[in-house]
């Protein structure tokens, strides 16, 4: 340990940020020293990304200050933060795929001589940056970005930050899309940056990485600062406890009683594809099975495989006892399945169409092209009754769904799958981005559906939701189902399985 620490390079003091209906950050402070990797952990919704967005000037805080080198700074635009020396690397890249590494790094700041780009200088500076990152052996300044691997692209992003003379670097889940050997590549780079005196804020869900890299760890929970601890002084079990410990101030509907659980609707045996390995489980009528796991563990891929978006390539899928090959969403819908996707706006709704038309979207896919829409109401589902069943609040059914709130949009998506009388429903993050009141409504609805005999598979990264709603919990890690936990399992047990560790105590059944 350092005897007399230098002053912190970055200080965040008492940041508070209120969004409509949510206190996203409540008096959060954090500091980062030169040459330090400071991990920030917390569940989804703990406030990590909001804090980072404030740090880089994408959001403005309601209260609180940011100091860089002891100087107070105000950022109103990401470019200002960049110029001051704070760079962020997002999970989604902002590189131009058809331009070279050098062109990307110096975009907007091309070294010029007599008005012309000094290509030699640009390439030399790029080589120099890559050398500093010890990446010059495997990344050429002339390579097109699209020809690079994800990790290499990330290194180019880092080089871009370096070229901006960044002294503070924020990395948001940098390894989410990386293969194991690529992670090591990235870590070497991150360590060399640390050794050069940069302050690095590292956001991750993966404990193994955090313990490998970070000096200190700050834990956020529900928008509040819980603790900042030295990484070598804490165990992963304690860290989990800091992240999750909470009082339940929210009441979930009761679990299914044994009588409510019926016959097997869906059985998957040893199914695999490019993302998933040996998936086996059963889903019964009347039960809600929760799927927990970290980002990138294969949760969404499982839903997509079941629904025929990216089908399984091997193994066996049985729907109501009959072996079926589901090769497209239409095939899945014909089997009585429905998929409530995570991203409603991009995947669930045709936003400019009316509530009515969105509710009937999937039903119509099952009908003949020339079926008159008039008959959809008469012979088919009763749209009005469906919207009442999901408790939709809309001015009228002919209103375009783009003007509805997030919660009401989600109810329209749900009504869409009720219209096809789905017997198996897959929910991916059913309450993401939905305010607390609407959340309770959706939870009640899920249970009511299960009680009426629907088999429900619920993917969620909110542990309280998984625990509160699920009659059984399947935990995924690295494309596999690594364990099954009973209703009401502890958050700590789920987190341990999800981070690829063994259970501390209690039974492991699978």
């Amino acid at each position, binding site marked *: 340990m350092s005897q007399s620490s230098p002053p912190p390079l970055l200080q965040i003091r008492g940041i508070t940020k209120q969004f409509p209906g949510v206190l996203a950050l409540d008096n959060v402070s954090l500091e980062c020293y030169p040459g330090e990797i400071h991990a920030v952990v917390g569940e989804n919704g703990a406030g990590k990304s909001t804090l980072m967005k404030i740090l880089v000037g994408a959001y403005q805080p309601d209260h609180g200050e940011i100091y860089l080198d002891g100087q107070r700074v105000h950022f109103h635009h990401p470019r200002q933060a960049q110029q001051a020396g704070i760079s962020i690397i997002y999970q989604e890249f*902002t*590189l*131009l795929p058809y331009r070279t590494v050098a*062109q990307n790094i110096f*975009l907007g*700041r091309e070294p010029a001589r007599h008005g012309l*780009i000094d290509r030699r200088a640009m390439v030399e500076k790029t080589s120099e940056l890559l050398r500093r990152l010890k990446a010059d052996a495997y*990344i*050429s300044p002339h390579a097109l970005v699209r020809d690079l691997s994800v990790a290499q692209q990330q290194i180019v992003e880092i080089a871009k930050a370096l070229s901006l003379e960044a002294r503070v670097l924020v990395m948001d889940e940098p390894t989410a899309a990386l293969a194991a050997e690529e992670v090591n*590549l990235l870590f070497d780079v991150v360590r060399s940056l640390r050794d050069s005196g940069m302050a690095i804020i590292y956001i991750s869900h993966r404990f193994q990485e955090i313990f490998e890299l970070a000096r200190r760890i700050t834990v956020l929970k529900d928008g509040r600062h819980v603790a900042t601890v030295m990484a070598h002084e804490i165990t992963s079990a304690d860290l989990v406890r800091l992240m999750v410990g909470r009082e339940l101030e929210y009441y979930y509907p009761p679990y299914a009683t044994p009588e409510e659980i019926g016959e097997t609707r869906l059985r998957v045996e040893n199914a695999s594809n490019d993302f998933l390995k040996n998936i086996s489980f059963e889903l019964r009528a009347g039960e809600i099975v929760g799927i927990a796991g970290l980002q990138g563990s294969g949760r969404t891929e499982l839903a997509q495989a079941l629904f025929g978006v990216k089908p399984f390539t091997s193994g066996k899928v049985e729907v109501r006892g009959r072996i079926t090959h589901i090769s497209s969403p239409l095939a899945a819908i014909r089997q009585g399945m429905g998929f409530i996707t995570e991203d409603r706006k991009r995947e669930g709704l045709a936003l400019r169409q009316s509530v009515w038309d969105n509710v009937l979207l999937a039903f119509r896919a099952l009908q003949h092209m020339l079926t008159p829409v008039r008959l959809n109401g008469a012979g088919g589902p009763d749209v009005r009754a469906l919207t009442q069943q999901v408790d939709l609040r809309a001015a009228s059914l002919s209103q375009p769904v783009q003007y509805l709130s997030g919660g009401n949009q989600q109810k329209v998506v749900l009504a869409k799958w009720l219209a096809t009388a789905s017997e198996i429903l897959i929910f991916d993050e059913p309450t993401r981005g939905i305010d607390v009141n609407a959340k309770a409504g959706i939870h009640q609805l899920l249970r009511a559906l299960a009680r009426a005999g629907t088999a429900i598979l619920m993917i969620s990264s909110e542990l309280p939701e998984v625990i509160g709603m699920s009659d059984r919990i399947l935990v995924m890690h690295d494309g596999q189902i690594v364990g099954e936990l009973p209703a009401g399992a502890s958050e700590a047990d789920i987190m341990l399985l999800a981070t690829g560790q063994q259970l501390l105590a209690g039974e492991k059944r699978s």
Partner: protein
Amino acid sequence: MKLSVPLRRRIPSIYIVLLLFYLAGWVLVSLFGRGTWLSGTNLSNMAVRSVALGIVAIGQTFTILVGSLDLSVAYLISVVAVMASYLMQGDPDKVPQAILIVFGIGVGVGLANGLIITKLRLNAFIATVGTGLLMQGVLNASFENFAGAVPASFQDFAYGKLGPFPAPVLLLLLIAALAAFVLERTRFGAHLYAVGGNRSTARLSGVRTDRVIIAAHVIASLMATISGLFIVSRLRAGAPWVGPDGAYDIESVAAVVVGGTALSGGRGGVGGTLAGVFIFSVLDTMFNQLGIDPYLKQVFRGLIIIAAVASYSVRSRETAA
């Protein structure tokens, strides 16, 4: 880890296709056609044939690279051709003044297109179809037929030679080289690719995206102006139909996309465009010398456009997967 080869400057495959077309022409014309294929005259005829479309297409490359489109070029060519011959009236002394005015018109049209697209946020297709119709209407109302004439001296522009090389071909190559230089070596060129590739990335990197788009449109209009001057110097007088008859709007877009520039922007270059234009010329010459119905070549052109773009889209999907 894969090593990326530095200076990976492969010959674009479109030039191989061009060569194949040329060789196919040689074989077919030798077997069934008349005239000689492999003569210097033939080659220079093919090249001259490419000039008018080539210059417009180079300008079109700029708008398409930046993620826009200019369908008004055909009518601008007419305006320039008519105005030039009308203003010159066969008098060599009036040439500089006329050239100045038509370039002024070109800049004005480019600015108008660019401003309508960036400031009024119009779809480029709609905006430039609109400005094109506007020019067509005004021109047709003002001129019905060939108007005025260019002086004989001005026709040297189209028919002159420098040594064995036709002057307009040299001009085309010069413009192409200049355009390639601008795209490859200037900050403006780099920003053009960035805006076409991802507008928000470009903006976050401090690129003034609207200015880049407007500049691309001004360049496209300037190129159409030069092309219009070339056409009037060949024809001696301009008429309102010279632009639309040459279908320079759709043909220039076609040449650009056949040359491998993505219609969505951010990818491609002038080299490919030139190859696209030459492919069309080789095809024309080949059909002429084979004595085949000239309209068949148009059918071929249409199918080549679709096939070329389909091959690019299939290939980019393969490498992406």
